[in-house]
């Protein structure tokens, strides 16, 4: 047999296989996955550290990578020198604008006098603070974030969240790669699960998290929401709203229903806008048709999650649930052509003149 012997058996690892991802302006897409699933490879491809073996990447905007944080310098630089180098090399900052940004970095990082000392004298927390403060000192158009918000103490993490939120509200886009699902829920509307180099799920971030964690909804045995209930409702802002919900009581017991309407605030997470106490719906075995009423709906147009909870009236024991935390919440779309001036809710009010000075 003829042939050319291969010099050695080179192994090829397909870190990523046929991935398609679109990140719209002003949105952060989350990537969930286990160690070694290909998360960091994806981020480095997006950041231009590697070239893809096949396929194309389009970037429309200036990219700031918050990964390999120490990439620009070495530990013998002082914090100030590192920041200056980063701003000049990556940010393209001119000498005139430098001083103000450096002051901001020193203040945000809370390094104080240590800012002028060599990075090798820093604790890991101090260097993490320096890197974060430096990378986010300027408004970039695209942020690529790798596990970033897991560094630092509670106080610093809260600050990081606030800053990321500001950057996002100014229209930045990004990709957040993490296995910390809390961050995905707080920052992203959409998320993908990466498994063995492929996306195994692409969709709403709450559903992605539920899938990633393998959470299952407990089986309802005493009372449950009917499977005939719609998974999405719509309503008009400012009008009286009636939401129809069917509940099947399976064994005689006083059943209560509580509801909440929550909204995703980018960078802050889900916030409860409206919440009710548990309200009695009856005890008899059979179908109960419930109408949830909200007079003059105080919500501004947008997408909300309607969460419903059934509990035993006496013991408060949970019986069934529809909630984003289980990935089975109902969607509530609120419509209106009115402008609420950027307010998060539609607060009722009337205006009238008064006398006097």
């Amino acid at each position: 047999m003829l042939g050319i012997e291969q010099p050695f058996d080179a192994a090829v690892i397909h870190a990523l296989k046929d991935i398609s991802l679109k990140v719209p302006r002003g949105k952060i897409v989350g990537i969930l996955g286990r160690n070694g699933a290909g998360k960091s490879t994806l981020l480095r491809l997006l950041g231009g550290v590697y070239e893809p073996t096949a396929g194309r990447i389009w970037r429309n905007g200036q990219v700031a990578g918050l990964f390999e944080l120490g990439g620009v310098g070495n530990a013998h630089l002082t914090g100030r020198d590192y920041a200056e180098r980063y701003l000049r090399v990556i940010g393209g900052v001119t000498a005139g604008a430098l001083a103000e940004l450096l002051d901001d970095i020193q203040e945000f990082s809370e390094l104080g006098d240590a800012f002028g000392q060599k990075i090798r004298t820093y604790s890991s927390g101090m260097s993490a603070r320096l890197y974060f403060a430096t990378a986010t000192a300027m408004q970039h158009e695209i942020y690529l974030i790798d596990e970033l918000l897991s560094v630092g103490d509670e106080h610093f993490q809260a600050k990081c969240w606030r800053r990321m939120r500001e950057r996002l509200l100014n229209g930045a886009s990004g990709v957040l790669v993490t296995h910390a699902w809390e961050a995905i829920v707080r920052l992203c509307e959409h998320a993908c699960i990466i498994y063995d180099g492929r996306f195994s799920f692409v969709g709403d971030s709450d559903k992605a998290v539920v899938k990633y964690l393998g959470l299952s909804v407990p089986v309802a045995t005493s009372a449950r929401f009917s499977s005939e209930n719609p998974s999405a409702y719509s309503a008009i802002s400012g009008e009286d709203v009636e939401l129809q919900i069917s509940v099947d009581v399976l064994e005689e017991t006083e059943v209560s229903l509580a509801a909440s309407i929550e909204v995703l605030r980018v960078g802050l997470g889900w916030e409860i806008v409206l919440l009710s106490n548990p309200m009695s719906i009856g005890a008899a075995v059979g179908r109960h048709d419930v109408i949830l009423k909200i007079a003059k709906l105080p919500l501004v147009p947008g997408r909300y999650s309607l969460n419903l909870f059934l509990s035993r009236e006496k013991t408060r024991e949970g019986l069934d649930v529809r909630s984003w935390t289980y990935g089975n919440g109902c969607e509530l779309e609120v419509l209106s052509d009115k402008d609420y001036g950027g307010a998060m809710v539609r607060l009722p009010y009337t205006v009238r003149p008064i006398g006097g000075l």
Partner: protein
Amino acid sequence: MEQRLSLEHVSKSFTTALIPGGQAGQSTKLAVDDVVLEIRCGDRVGIVGPNGAGKSTLLHMIAGVSSPTSGRIDVQGKVTSILTLGVGLRDDLSGRENIFVDGAVQGKSRDDIDKVVEEVVAFAELGEFIDYPVRTYSTGMKARLAFSMITHLEPEILIIDEALSVGDAGFGAKATKKILDICNRGKIVIIVSHSMGSIRSMCNRCLWMDSGRIVMDGDPEVVTAAYIEAVRGADEAILLQRFKAFERTRSVVPGSRINSVELFNGSLSPARVLKAGEHSFLRIRGEHALSAAGGECQIRIVRLDDAVLLSLVQCVDQWRLGETNFGLEIDLGPLVLGMATYRLDVSLVSNDCVCAESSVVFEVIAPLAPTGGKPMLLYPMTLESSFSGALEGSLR
């Protein structure tokens, strides 16, 4: 002999040269300040505290990486530490080869290592990567390998610095179980972490360090809760201070000014603490020169976290009282704002230019808020329920 660890008045100070290479300006920082600590067999100690509290310095001294400036550390037992995960790994060797090298370094015989190697490989869950060079690993994969290697060496006193935040959810759970295993065999574990969750689930004792000292020592639930509360409290105080800095009244353009902004809540005297559910209204009085064409009054209610709850614009001319004066009342009905601190911003604007502005900070309290959450609005939802009959047999 039983493992034991005791620190007697341990302090550690660092000297940093302010001028590189120079002797002239030196400063001394006390990283650990007179710590007295006794850790016994079976203790799983979590250490929490802000950055720079001295947590890592303390661990380094216990691990023997550095020595105290003063005081005494008495360690009974063999200390194994994960201070920086993956540092001991040799990049050009495969994961499997690293297990053998590390075992040899730890003084294990080839036979001993052979006995555990498959177990370590299985625990690390690296698949085919176990036979690839470590330089091809992601950070998380290195962490998994390093953790698996160390916990299989039967450590007597295990010290872990922040290491567990690197693994993913699945591996983190396994690592936690492994650490509990080690402790159940009567060993000592000391963990420094910013994850209150892992400290609560893994430790039976928790130290809170701040400025080199131990502030609190006790049950993990109690200590972590107190620590988080302190951090939140301090952050909130700063936030509130900044928020209140906006509380001011100023006039930019002569002839325009806001004379008063008052809030009323269930009574006719102005209030700054409002009770949810009580009838509430705002009264704004000011002057806006007639010459300023198209004068507008902008009113916003902003929450402490910058969420805007109300934003409306009123044409001043509508509410004129005389030549220049105006006054308007905004009736909010029964107050539906949730429990929080808010700021009411009022500004007079002409041709997109702010002529005068005034802000007041107020607080809403809600004695009858629903349980199970802190909603943005305390707004009623009601139910109407009708029984529509028995379920069909198939539904049972």
